[in-house]
């Protein structure tokens, strides 16, 4: 999502200023108002939300619902609680953008949220993060996938803040499936990722893919776990590509089996750029930095 689209988002928050565009069949409210209007939302919020959005998709829509949370002023601290509900049988696309408009705003962005896919719902959610080098970011999301629902979640960190913590918990009930991909282009950052898929329901499935590039002064700690609690299938795929000598990476893949009819597999690797690939691209006329850029972008997209 580019900035032009971001300005036209259905829910925008610039520092603390909110703008909402109405969509037929979708209820969009600030979380605080949603809690006042719908008592049942209390079970999803942790106390009274200060900021954040409530998006309730009730009818089929043919375009993506978009959100944009920006830090635009110095030392702003956002504290968001978000709740997204996709009603039964709907196929929906969501695009979320979280960013700092400038590189040196020293902003804070704390976001927690729940995303609930009701039975047979399908959600494709692309979530983009572009931060300034002095920002501090904490995000904590929980996805609940009800029976037969399907989630495709792409979380892309285009530029990392000074410090970032990402927690993601995905709970899959019967026959639901989750495909999660977390991509990080990491530089001058201290990044911690904790992502868990829990396959609770029979015939549920989960794939968790991590692609992390470590550039200058990137310190990355990532714990990824798949837990099976029923007859189901999971796969974990963690790959790290350190391209600078100061990059440090710890990838910890964990497989937890609580049902002997389940199957979990994993692949994990951390490795430098292949010299052969570099030489190959140079024989196509690319210089070293162009070749590295192409390989890194390919790695992140794979």
């Amino acid at each position: 999502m580019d900035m032009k689209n971001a300005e036209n988002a259905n829910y925008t928050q610039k520092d603390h200023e909110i703008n909402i565009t109405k969509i037929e069949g979708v209820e969009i409210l600030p979380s605080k108002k949603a809690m006042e209007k719908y008592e049942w939302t209390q079970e999803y919020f942790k106390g009274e939300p200060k900021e954040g959005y409530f998006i309730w998709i009730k009818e089929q829509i043919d375009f993506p619902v978009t959100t944009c949370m920006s830090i635009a002023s110095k030392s702003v601290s956002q504290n968001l609680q978000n709740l997204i509900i996709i009603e039964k049988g709907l196929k929906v696309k969501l695009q979320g953008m979280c960013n700092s408009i400038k590189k040196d705003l020293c902003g804070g962005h704390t976001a927690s949220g729940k995303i609930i896919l009701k039975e047979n719902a399908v959600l494709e959610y692309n979530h983009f993060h572009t931060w300034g080098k002095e920002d501090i970011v904490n995000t904590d999301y929980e996805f609940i996938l009800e029976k037969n629902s399907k989630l495709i979640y792409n979380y892309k960190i285009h530029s990392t803040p000074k410090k970032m913590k990402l927690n993601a918990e995905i709970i899959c009930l019967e026959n639901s499936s989750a495909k999660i991909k977390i991509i990080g282009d990491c530089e001058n950052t201290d990044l911690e990722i904790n992502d868990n898929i829990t396959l609770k329901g029979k015939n549920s499935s989960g794939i968790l893919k991590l692609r992390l590039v470590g550039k200058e002064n990137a310190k990355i700690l990532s714990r990824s776990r798949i837990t099976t609690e029923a007859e189901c299938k999971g796969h974990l795929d963690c790959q790290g590509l350190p391209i600078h000598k100061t990059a440090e990476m710890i990838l910890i893949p964990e497989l937890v089996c609580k049902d002997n009819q389940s199957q979990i597999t994993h692949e994990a690797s951390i490795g430098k750029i292949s010299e052969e690939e570099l030489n190959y691209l140079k024989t196509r006329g690319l210089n070293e930095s162009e070749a590295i850029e192409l390989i890194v972008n390919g790695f992140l997209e794979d």
Partner: protein
Amino acid sequence: MVLEIRDLKVKSGEKDILKGINLKINQGETHALFGPNASGKSTLVQTLAGNPRYEVTGGKILFNGVDITKLPTEERIKMGLAITWQNPPTIKGVKLSKLLDKISKRDLKPEELEVNSGILNRNINQNFSGGEKKISELLQVISLNPKLVIFDEIDSGLDIKKLEKVSKIIKKELIDKNVSVLVITHNGEILNFLKPKIINVLVDGKIICEETDYGKVLKTIKEYGYEKCRKCELHAERP
């Protein structure tokens, strides 16, 4: 003259591999280079490409009269040198079309070359068949609009139909357009399609034979092996 190699000596690690190579290729000429395993063919290709793993210990490489012996790879390619790889690596997540868009110096429509454009939307060399790899290499070098192309075993692993197809493309897109070509080959079948002007035989790091009649050289190698070439008995009376 497009390429002139003068007394080129190359080592890899501690081992001397090329021991004084001399080769001249004029604009528009097609040459072939034969040689047994470990004769130095791939070393020659990688040295011409500027691969830093190979150390030039003597001699010169001139490209269009310019000494490129110490130039980095990408500079050589920009000057018009192009090279296909015998075993090209996989580049994960990078579609062939993306690379072609990035490097292309001419408007190349794969369908005009009668090649399956399906490979364009796949990651470079990932799960490509042997034939698809060769087509991918061909598309890349043609798109560079080169002055000289070095084909490193472009014919290996191809059946006769695919070999004919690859040869037709090389002829139509390069040879007929006055591009110089150096074909490095093991079995020589491709030469029946490309009809090189000069055939060179590389043995033990040296070119020991330079002939114009490729049929004669092929026949000699097939019948008597490279031992005959070592003794340079091509013109001698057969036993």
